[in-house]
């Protein structure tokens, strides 16, 4: 029963998230809004209980699996990608390297500067 209760709660928050995105016309996906709503609830209530926690852990431990069907979608664009594969590949690799290292460096620096001051 624990898993059913947990997943029901998550789906309710997702549903409320989807509905508010539609009603308020915000350009972000419903589940992201649902996540922020659940986070707020957890802060207000001081935790979510064992059932929610075990369901969340189960889903998040297998998060990789959930991206596979979208990834297989590459099949539809094989021709387009083949035509421009080199600039695409270089852009993806270099931009990922730049973003990873720049964000890590900025957070490390700002964190050090601000903690030193206080």
């Amino acid at each position, binding site marked *: 029963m624990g898993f059913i209760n947990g997943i029901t709660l998550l789906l309710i928050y*997702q549903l409320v998230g989807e509905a508010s995105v539609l009603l308020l016309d915000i350009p*972000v996906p419903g589940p992201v809004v649902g996540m922020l709503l659940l986070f707020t609830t957890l802060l207000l209530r001081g935790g979510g209980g064992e059932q929610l926690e075990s369901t969340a852990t189960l889903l998040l431990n297998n998060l990789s699996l959930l991206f596979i069907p979208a990834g297989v979608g590459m099949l539809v664009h094989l021709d387009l990608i083949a035509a*421009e594969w080199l600039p695409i590949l270089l852009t993806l690799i270099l931009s*990922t390297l730049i973003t990873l290292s720049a964000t890590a460096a900025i957070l*490390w620096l700002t964190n050090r500067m601000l903690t030193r001051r206080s």
Partner: protein
Amino acid sequence: MADNQLAAIWVYLSASPLLGLTVTLLAYGIAYRLYMHFNANPLLNPVATSVAMLICLLLITDTPYQAYFEGGQFVHFLLGPATVALAVPLYKQWAKLKKLWLPLTITLLCGVVIGALSSVGLARLLHAGLQTQLSLAPKSVTAPVAMGISEKIGGLPSLTAVFVVATGILGAVLGNKIFALMRINDDSIRGFAMGITAHGIGTARAFQISPEMGAFSGLAMALSTFTTAFILPWLLGLLGFF
């Protein structure tokens, strides 16, 4: 006669969701065992190997993606509740989050701009077509949002989805190598950088390393989703893309 029967069974099965769902789980099971067998070598990222296996399978059996997705959608659907579930580990990091809010905000804004500009700029420098450049711009945010942004700025949403998954895999594969080279071993910093760059796939990888890295990656993913959705169209407009 036997051939005919086999063909009939195949026609029936390939049209039902059962086959697509089963091969997705099987591919992941094989990919995950392979990954574990080689001591979690990031080059054998389970998303990448599963996707490669499934694409080969679909090409060999001449199955269209739509037929596969009839079954794949059940797994795909769980992305929604899994995104909501990110609130749980995030809540556990609340104390640390409160302490770090200012550096996190600064990093978030810089990271979103750097991610978008570096991809559009590099693609332009390397003479990719305009549509490819624009489709690459939102590649660091989670697929459904990236596709929405791509449509808004004149990219090709389904192509963007491919770039999003590729970026996630690259981030998951390269992340820890880069952080080790930079001698950054604070899991909150590593997680936040991972989430801004490589959204959910990076977050999945981060959870394998530690719950703290996963929580910060999930937070970065959620925040950068919001920030990118609002900033990117405006930023590209400023640069004269449309």
